[in-house]
């Protein structure tokens, strides 16, 4: 049997200019309705004039290994995709919002058609051997989709020598977005 994949995303904040190409590419790829998004940019400024620092972060669903949205979903609509991703089956979703309350990353919204929606790592593209739309569009090559179960060394190469930050690890979610500082 083929080795199981474990997709994760590595995001190089040094390269990111916060342009939002990832946000709109996702919206058109996934037909995300007006007023919502599956990924977004956070820009943080710290310090006092003129000693300032800036952090640009492209954010989305963390595709947690221990995902509260999955464990809190009463209908199994939220489920593990088997490739390290967390997916939603719209037909099973009742729009009860238990997952939205459970998600520490505020990654979900209720689609106007009544189901919870969020980043899928563009699973339909992964199946065609393509990278997610946000990764493909990114003009600064900030975003990298990696397979942590692969031995291609890509994740190690990207992280080598870099400070790696994860979000709300204390929540025990085992998130799979890695920001390089």
């Amino acid at each position, binding site marked *: 049997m083929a080795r199981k994949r474990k997709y994760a995303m590595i995001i*190089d904040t*040094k*390269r990111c*200019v*916060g*342009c*939002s*190409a990832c*946000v*709109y*590419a996702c*919206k*058109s*790829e996934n*037909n995300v309705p*007006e*007023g919502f998004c599956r990924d977004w940019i956070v820009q943080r*400024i710290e*310090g*006092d*004039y*003129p000693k*300032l*620092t*800036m*952090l*640009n972060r492209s954010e989305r669903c963390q595709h947690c290994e221990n995902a509260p949205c999955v464990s809190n979903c009463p209908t*199994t*609509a939220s*489920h*593990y995709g*088997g490739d390290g991703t967390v*997916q939603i*089956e*719209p*037909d*099973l979703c009742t729009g009860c919002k238990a997952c939205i309350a459970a998600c520490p990353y505020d990654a979900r919204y209720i689609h106007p058609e009544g189901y919870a929606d969020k980043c899928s790592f563009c699973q*339909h593209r992964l*199946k065609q051997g393509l990278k997610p*739309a946000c990764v*493909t*569009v*990114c*003009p*600064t*090559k*900030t975003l990298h989709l990696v397979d942590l179960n692969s031995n291609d060394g890509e994740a190690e190469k990207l992280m080598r020598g870099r400070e790696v930050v994860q979000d709300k690890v204390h929540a025990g979610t085992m998130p799979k977005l890695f920001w390089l500082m």
Partner: protein
Amino acid sequence: MAGGSLSFNQHKSLKAAQTSEEKVVPTLCELCFWRCGVNAHVRDGKVYKITGQEQHPLSNGRLCPRGTGGHGLLYDPNRLKHPLIREKVNGKEMFRKADWEEAITLVADNFMRIREEYGHGSVVTFTHGFGASFLKILCASCGMISAPSYAQCRGPREDAFKLTFGHSVGSPEALDIKNSQYLVLIGTHLGENMHNTAVQDFADAIGNGCRIVVVDPRFSTAAGKAERWLPIRPGTDMALLRAWIRILIEEELYDRPFVEENTVGLEEVREGVQDATPENTAALTGIAAEDIIAVARDLGRYKNHALIHPGRRVTWYGDDTQRERAIAILNALLGNYRRPGGLFKQNKYGVPKPKFPIAIVGERKFVSRYPFASSVPASEILQQTITSDPWPVKGWMVYGTNMIHSLGNQAQTIEALNQLEFMVAIDVLPMEITSYADVILPEHTYLERYDDLDDRSFRVPYVGLRQPVVPPLYDTKSGYEIAKMLSEKMGKFDLFPDDVETYLDGRLREVNSSLAEIKEKGVLKKPEMDFYRKPWESLKFRTPSGKIELASSKLKASGFDAVPRYTPPQENPPGYFRLLFGRAPMHTFGRTANNRFLGELMPENELWVNEITGKDMKLKPGEYVYLINQDGVKSKTPIKIRLTQRIRPDSVYMVHGFGHTHPELEQAFGRGASDADLITHLDIDPIMGATGMQNNFVTFTRKA
């Protein structure tokens, strides 16, 4: 779980069946003027997404947010959908729907009448963008002047580099940013100024560990990437550049062999910058002397692999050509010409240009009063329209440029408009300027039309094609059809072939290709240039001396300073703040403010105000205020206050392109404010006629 997966797969296969109608068409973007290759994805006859073209050297498969949201323009409900003619009904002026035959006849008749009455050059075309190429041919063959937006953008840079190196920087800029080891940006906000390839190169430079210095009154995104942010006092950049020149020369940090072999005027420059000591410069610029010295020494350390970026829109203070000259001199001293990380010269693919007849206009050939204007300054034509000196201008054709928002000094633009006997506007959306037209001709959007071949200089010489992706949605026409119809009405029957395909195919046959081939491929490419200079190469420059002119012989001969001199900027009137403006990555000037898709990413602009200033002026974050400038002119719309540490306390900043007042722009109407309302003072560059826009100052009022 298994059930979920099964159902998911079914869902997918259903989707696959639905997508069988899909096609992908390679074409060129027009959301800004960089002209990236894009793939337009069409499903059931509708463009649903746009991605970067893998094979296109400007996109490399990647794209900025504007290009990604380009179909927001195609499907904009407020588009110009049919020709419009101004008419007086019961004393009230309004636009009525017209057919093309009537509208084109009216335009041609009026232009011919004006030309008959006032002579050649009495009709002028203002253009911004690639779609104007065929109209420019029409103008040349009918004795009409055409004025691009050069004097409001990168004109001073191009002319300064021509004077120094004998060639311009060009667009896309011939800068080897991705291989730079030390990059200095002067007000250039790469990352907010979102030219795809330039930002790709900038990110590669960051990835390669390039050290970055940003000189900017505002903590830009680029400043967020820099090891040093130097929040310079606005208007004193020239002082800083001269100080760096002085240190490079005095401390012998310049590339001596290169400078000795390839430049003239070092001694004159040395003399000319004697006053620019680090201490004097610190007092002028507000930048500490040790920072000034440290950067100069770093420049000297990286020399050939360091780059002072010449910027893009550099029409700031009226001495912009000289400031750009100072930047050119610094780069020359570093010896970075055609070295990894420096300046270079790039080539075209080289599709021969078809020969079109050019009208003989005799005495009426436009000669700018600004001796080094290498293009027609729009602002000068505006003046001529008002004064009729040296001859009257009575007809305007305005293509794709919203002059009310782009030129500054709106009162002057309106005064000029009032002198006209006829004006036609060609655009895809209603804009403030189109309201002044007698006839409005609606153009196809870039996704519905062919344009001329894109054969520009780049490190990978290429030809790009813009081709229609979907049939036109409305009763609009392409620039080609408009130019052809006008030419025939004006008696030039053979100017253009019957259809644009024949024209494009004819051009491509000259390079052993065809329209069919490029339609399929999207782009023709040659191998990347090997532009790095070889040790045995001797360099020649197209300047009077054949060398890089550190001191400019041409400027000197025309009575200008051969070595750039510092002029102090205008001071802020008490209680007023300098108005700075720039770009955001998701918008292009005022052209995209009505795009619903991009509007979601950024619906309005905000006024950046330093937190200390905010406290002094009792401004609350998020409140809306009107702005009043030094001449008592108030912004037409209010703007939201953003209190931030990211700007000097003496300046305020907004993204250009908002504050639209055209009621038919439903998305953009009344959102944010326009800097153009407040730029009543222009400083004209005496060397080439650029309009400096940044000596304007504002204060706040809550009164509507």
